[in-house]
């Protein structure tokens, strides 16, 4: 029998030993992404081709950019169900502006700004009316989609300058342009979250809103800002989607909100707020992208695909919960 006194002198060392375990478990999503990648490379000869990989990147980028904004929103303890509708509205207004003769950059800017305004509306409503973001964005999901359909009369915008396709389909230095955009957005979001006051407040508000209020933090301002940023990124994603389709589709982005939320959650984000990371979300989005691409390549039925991705979400969150429980019981 060990003497308890000896045990106790060891305890200061224990957190460090635990730390290694935590790092390993934190790496788990990343490892599963790599394993998935390698497995697909072995299973399908078409996987490691240039066309396929850049197609995965292009497909994933739209969800990924949305998911970056969703990461911030979920960390602050919120949710945004309206991003699919925002994506459609941004894409539609941006392409309409081009149809009316504005330049391509101006169109992209308008699409992105549309997203920003929608996000701002979401943020103002949750903070000022004090309604749960789930309810607010469930409402605006309908409002934004409805407005988009009214504005477009339900018809897609087709007359878009040919050069606009570069945004979604072009290459820079042999790498899809959207991937560059994604990397840039991810780096900026990561810096904002980890190294700025806004990011710090985002974690603090999500971890304990009451304590943030008591610390004198302008909670409503920062919450609104986070929803606006999320909307802005979604607006940009809407323009990329429009560029890939070369149409402004008023019905674009249906169900994307759930994919964006899934990416954040697979990446370790907690719907209770206070937890989540850009790298986690990127991994989450790519895992989903690879799963759907891999199923296509291997001829898995698209019906089964949905079930697989659903199961992965539950599995990822279960593993993450187990990790948290292990770290908390000390």
């Amino acid at each position, binding site marked *: 029998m060990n003497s308890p006194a000896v*045990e106790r002198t060891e305890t200061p060392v224990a957190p460090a030993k635990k730390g290694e375990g935590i790092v390993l478990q934190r790496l788990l999503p990343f490892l599963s992404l790599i394993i998935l990648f390698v497995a697909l490379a072995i299973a399908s000869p078409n996987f490691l081709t240039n066309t396929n990989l850049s197609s995965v990147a292009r497909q994933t980028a739209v969800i990924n950019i949305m998911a970056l904004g969703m990461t911030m929103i979920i960390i602050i303890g919120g949710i945004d169900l309206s991003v699919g509708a925002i994506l459609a509205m941004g894409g539609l207004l941006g392409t309409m502006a081009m149809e009316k003769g504005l330049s391509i950059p101006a169109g992209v800017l308008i699409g992105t700004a549309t997203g920003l305004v929608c996000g701002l509306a979401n943020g103002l409503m949750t903070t000022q009316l004090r309604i749960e973001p789930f309810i607010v964005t469930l409402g605006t999901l309908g409002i934004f989609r409805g407005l988009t359909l009214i504005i477009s009369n339900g018809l897609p915008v087709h007359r878009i300058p040919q050069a606009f396709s570069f945004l979604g389909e072009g290459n820079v230095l042999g790498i899809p342009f959207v991937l560059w955009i994604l990397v840039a957005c991810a780096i900026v979001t990561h810096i904002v979250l980890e190294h700025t006051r806004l990011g*710090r*407040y985002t974690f603090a508000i999500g971890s304990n809103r009451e304590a943030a*209020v008591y610390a*004198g933090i302008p909670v409503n301002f920062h919450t609104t800002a986070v929803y606006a940023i999320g909307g802005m990124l979604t607006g940009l994603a809407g323009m990329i989607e429009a560029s890939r389709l070369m149409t402004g589709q008023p019905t674009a982005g249906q169900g994307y909100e759930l994919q964006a939320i899934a990416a954040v959650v697979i990446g370790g984000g907690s719907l209770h707020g206070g937890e989540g990371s850009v790298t986690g979300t990127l991994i989450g989005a790519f895992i989903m992208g690879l799963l759907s691409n891999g199923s296509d390549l291997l001829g898995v039925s698209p019906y089964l695909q949905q079930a697989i991705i659903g199961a992965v979400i539950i599995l990822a969150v279960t593993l993450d919960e187990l990790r948290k429980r292990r770290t*908390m019981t000390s």
Partner: protein
Amino acid sequence: MLLELNHIEKRYGGVTALGDGNLAVQPGEVHLLLGENGAGKSTLMKIIAGIVARDAGQMLWQGREVHLKTPAEAAAIGISMVHQESLLAPHLTVAENLYLGREERLPLGWVRRRHMIEAASLVIAEHRFPLRAEWAVEKLTPAGKQLVEICRAILHGSSLVIFDEPTSSLSGSEAAEVFRIVRTLRERQVGVIYITHRLDELQSVGDRVTIMRDGRTVHTGPSAELTTERIIHHMVGREVSAIYQRNPLPQGDELLRVEHLNQQGRLNDISFSLRAGEIVGLAGLIGAGRTELCRALFGVDPIDSGRVSVCGREVVVGSPKHAVKAGIALVTEDRQITGLALRLPIGHNITLANMPAICRLGLVDGRAQNSAAVDYIGRLRIRAGSPRQLAGRLSGGNQQKVVIAKWLFRQARIFLFDEPTRGIDVGAKVEVFNLMHELARAGAAILMVSSEMPELLQVADRILVMRGGRITGELPGRTTQEAILRYAALETQPPAEERA
């Protein structure tokens, strides 16, 4: 013997929570369990209540060895526990909470609501609880909720009831109510285990005492034989002067002046001032308006009329943001709810209220944050491995210090402490008092709310007493409990119904 625990061991990972836990409880006895935070009391109680399983040792229930795996198994053999934190469903009524999980059901799952309310009313009346079966639990004060917890524990005919710090959120008359209920349990030959941090409760309720330290039982004996000094000696393992002594500091400028503060239904014509270097106690019973006053001064619940001046200049405290800017800090009693982001590192918590101080060009300067955190961890002797440790993994006393560090880093000068010693152990209490003294010496003005009058008498330079939202008296620091009580409780008050 009702319950006997011999050489209980329990470890979590590499950490030994219990090394040698021993406890014996007889029917009809009130057994006090004392010990600092982390001494192993809670773990031992969780083992008795079937919440965690022991690693080694023997648990005898009425002479027979038992291995309880769930709280339901413990309840089935007659062991129930009154938890420190409220585990009630706030939207349900008192009666529904009392029968939660044990509702009488007719076929098809139909709950006999009226019958349940009648049965609950009977039990409430029998024990003379100041409650009503149909009240909504969310409208009750903390004291009222505690009484519902107690009522639930004794409702189902337990032979052993564990009280985990039942009076830590209660003041005078409510605590007396709990003592009365404990005594009636004793008369009915129920065994009671009573965990407390308040040593003055010793004589009021206890028959025997068991003291734990570092996961071991270090003393068991009749409570009448023990002096406060002996108990503290057993708890901390060293001699500590039981009565904290502090010498008043020379007083500086007036930092805070409050004039004719009013808040509809809560505060009535409050006027007082605080000087630099001064610790002013705020006494009163639960519901007297002390917490409300702190919240009003901090801008959480804005005032209707009156003036607040800081350093001679009038300030409008419409929100905590304004109060923080004016240099006012509030350290609340429920620090886990309003003071800390438990899932964030200590370093983040300390710097949270003063981010501009560690930001360069809009980016957080990690090195500045780290050095600030290390500095305050050292200055306040926070027992933490590193600034990266999560705040949620600290003990209560150290969490308290992190909250104080946060305000020090914000350069606050007016500190409102609302029950700063609630739920922390004796050693940590003395440290908090020392800290307050240090703050005062560094030129801060301190308003300290406490329901524990001996603490106020030890620490405060003068004492304000509140009752019914008014300041009813101002006393010098070296006054008596009787004098405070005279101002605090001139009229008898109904305990549960008024808002806290």
